[in-house]
C-alpha cells in the first residue's frame, strides 16, 4: 500500500499501473507481451490486496473481452498490451465503442509491423489508435512524454472513459514505459475521479442508448435489475437490434458526436516558447523530449523556435495547429514512424503554412542534433 503523498523512483509502466489503481480501476485482464508486461506483473502483485481482480487470459482478444465484461459488471477495467496484441484487440475495441462500455486500453508501442522490434521504441500505432477497428467510431487517445505524465494521463484516461462511456487508449512509447524517473504521486483521496453516469429512475423510462446527440446516456451495472441488452448490432435506444436506416444513422452519429461535440473539454496540449516563435516543432511522447533539447539549442543560436506538444492525439488538437497556421509558422513534425500524425497537421494547416515530416523507423530515438539540423535546413 502506498502513502498518501509520495515521491518515488518509478518506471513508466509502474506509474501507469499506479495511476490506474488511483483512478479506481479494480479489474485487470491481460496477456504477457513486451514491452508492456510490467503493468500486468504489477497488477498481479497489487490488485488482490486492494480488493481488485487480476486475471491472465489466454490471449489479447480474451483480455479485452474480459475487461468489457468486468466493466459491464460495474467495475472500472483495463488491459495493457503492445502492437501485436493491440491488433488482436481491435474487433472488441469496436464492440466497446458500439455498446458504450467504458474501459482503458494501454498500448505500449513497439516497432512493427508484425513482431517487428519488441524492445525498440516506435510511434507507429497512432493511426491504428484512431482507425484500427472497422466502421465509424469515436476515438480518444492520449500520449505522455514522461513517467510523471504517464501517471496523470492514466488517471485522465480512466476518467474520460467513464465520462464518455467509451474505450480510451493510452499510447505509451516503449522508452517512456521503461524509463525510470522521480514521480510525485498525489494523495489519491484528493484526485478528481469520474464515475460513469448511472440510471436514476426506474426500468420503464431507462434508455441505456438514448439521450440527445450530445448526451452520454446512463449505464446500469449488471445485477442492478435493469435487465439491459447489449449488442454489437446496430440497436435502438433500449438496446434492441434494428435495421432501420434512421436508427442506424442516429446511433453512429451519436457515438461519434458525444466525443466530437466535447472535443474542447477533452483535448490538451502544451506550448513552449510559442509567443515569439517563427518556426515550431509539433511533437508528442518521447519525440517531444528530443524536441525540447533541440529547441534550447536552436534558441542559443538565435533561432526563434517553439514547441507544440499535444498530450491528446485523438480527437486531434486542431486548434493547436490552427493558431500556428494562422500566424504562418512552419511546422516540423518529428515522429517515430513514416508520417502519421503529420497527415492531420497538414490537413489542418491547409496550405497556409509549410509542414515538414521528420521520420525515424530504425528503432532509435531522435537525437536533438538531427531535429536541430532539420530546423536549420528549413521548410
Amino acid at each position, binding site marked *: 500500500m502506498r502513502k498518501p503523498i509520495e515521491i518515488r523512483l518509478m518506471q513508466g509502466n509502474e506509474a501507469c499501473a499506479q495511476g490506474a489503481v488511483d483512478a479506481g480501476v479494480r*479489474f485487470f*485482464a491481460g496477456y504477457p507481451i513486451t514491452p508492456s508486461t510490467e503493468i500486468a506483473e504489477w497488477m498481479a*502483485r497489487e490488485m*488482490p*490486496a486492494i*480488493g481488485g*481482480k487480476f*486475471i491472465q*487470459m*489466454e*490471449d489479447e*482478444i*480474451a*483480455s479485452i*473481452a*474480459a*475487461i*468489457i*465484461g*468486468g*466493466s*459491464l*459488471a*460495474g*467495475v472500472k*477495467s483495463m488491459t495493457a498490451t503492445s502492437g501485436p496484441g493491440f491488433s488482436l484487440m481491435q*474487433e*472488441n475495441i469496436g*464492440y466497446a465503442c458500439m455498446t458504450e462500455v467504458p474501459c482503458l486500453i494501454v498500448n505500449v508501442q513497439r516497432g512493427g509491423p508484425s513482431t517487428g522490434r519488441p524492445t525498440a521504441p516506435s510511434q507507429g500505432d497512432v493511426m491504428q489508435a484512431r482507425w484500427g477497428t472497422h466502421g465509424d467510431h469515436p476515438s480518444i487517445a492520449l500520449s505522455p512524454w514522461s513517467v510523471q505524465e504517464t501517471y496523470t494521463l492514466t488517471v485522465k484516461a480512466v476518467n474520460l472513459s467513464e465520462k464518455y462511456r467509451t474505450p480510451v487508449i493510452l499510447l505509451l512509447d516503449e522508452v517512456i514505459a521503461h524509463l525510470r524517473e522521480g514521480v510525485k504521486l498525489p494523495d489519491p483521496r484528493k484526485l478528481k475521479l469520474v464515475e460513469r453516469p448511472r440510471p436514476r429512475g426506474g426500468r420503464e423510462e431507462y434508455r441505456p442508448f438514448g439521450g440527445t446527440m450530445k448526451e452520454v446516456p446512463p449505464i446500469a*451495472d*449488471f*445485477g*442492478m*435489475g*435493469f*435487465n*439491459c*441488452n*447489449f*449488442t*454489437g*448490432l446496430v440497436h435502438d435506444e433500449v438496446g*434492441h*437490434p434494428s435495421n432501420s436506416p434512421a436508427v442506424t444513422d442516429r446511433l453512429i452519429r451519436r457515438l461519434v458526436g458525444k466525443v466530437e461535440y466535447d472535443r474542447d473539454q477533452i483535448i490538451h496540449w502544451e506550448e513552449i516558447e510559442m509567443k515569439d516563435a517563427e518556426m515550431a516543432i509539433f511533437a508528442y511522447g518521447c519525440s517531444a523530449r528530443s524536441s525540447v533539447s533541440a529547441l534550447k539549442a536552436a534558441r542559443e543560436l538565435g533561432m526563434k523556435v517553439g514547441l507544440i506538444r499535444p498530450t491528446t492525439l485523438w480527437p486531434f488538437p486542431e486548434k493547436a495547429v490552427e493558431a500556428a497556421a494562422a500566424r504562418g509558422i512552419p511546422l516540423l513534425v518529428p515522429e517515430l514512424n513514416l508520417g502519421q500524425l503529420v497527415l492531420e497537421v497538414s490537413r489542418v494547416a491547409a496550405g497556409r503554412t509549410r509542414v515538414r515530416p521528420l521520420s525515424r523507423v530504425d528503432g532509435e530515438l531522435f537525437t536533438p542534433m538531427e531535429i536541430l539540423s532539420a530546423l536549420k535546413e528549413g521548410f
Partner: protein
Amino acid sequence: MPFNVTSYFRQEMLPHIWCPGCGNGIVLRDFAVALEKLNYSRQEVVIVSGIGCSSRAAGYLDFDTVHTTHGRALPFATGIKFANPGLKVFVIMGDGDASSIGGNHLIHACRRNIDLTAIIFNNHIYGMTGGQFSPMTPRDKKATTAPYGMIEQSFDLCRLAEAAGATYVGRATTYHNQLLTRLIVEGANNRGFSLIEAVTHCPTSYGRRNKMATPTDMVRWQKESAVLIDRIKEGRASLQEGQFPVGLLHQHDAPEFTAEYLEVVKRAREK
C-alpha cells in the same frame, strides 16, 4: 402457480428471427423451464452469447444480456463472473462459435473451471451465413463449403470439455428435451464450469442438403442416433456407427476459479 414461459421473454423482441422448423426455440424453452426450476431472482442472472443463429437467444430473454462478438462469449462471461461472482452467468453459443472461432476460449474456460454454465446449440452447421460446414459437421455430410461431403473429422465437444477440465458435461437433444432441462439445472448447480451440448436441428441449411428436409426427419434422426448414457452403462445398449451418447457424460470435483482467487487475496493480505 403454473409456469408461464412468456414471462421469461422480452415480448417486444418477438417473433424471433429463426426459420420455420428450427429447433432453437425448443432449446430456449427448455432453458426457460430450467431457469424457473432454479428459481433465481431476475436481477442475479446474466446471459452472454456469441454470434450466430443460436446467439440471438440472449436478446429474447428478459435478463441482463450481452450479445458479444463471434467466438468471444466465454471471455466476456469470464470478466462478468470474476468482477461480480454473485451473478449467475449462462453462456449461449453455437457449434461454430464455441468449437471453431471460440475453441481456444472454450478449453481455457474449462481449464480454469470458472463457475459458468455454457449451453452449446449444436445444429452441425453455420446457419446464419447459409449452411457452411462447422467443426461439428459429421463426416461425409454436405454443406455449401463442403459440396462433395465433409472430409474433416468432427469434434466431440463433450469429450474435449472433459479433457480440458470442465467439471460438469452433458448432452441432450431437442427430442430429449426434458433431459436437456435437467442437465441445465444440474449444470447451473455445479460449482465450476459446466458444458451442456444441446443437439438441435436446422432443416433449412443442414437437413435439406443431407436427406433430412423436414423438422420431423431431423428429430427422428436425433431419436435414432442418441443413446442414453445410463443404458450404455447398464449394458442395455451400445453405440453403433454414427450414434452418440446423451445424458450426464462427466462430472468431477475441482477447485473453482473465483473461489480460488479468494485464496490469492488472503495470501496477498498476509504478505
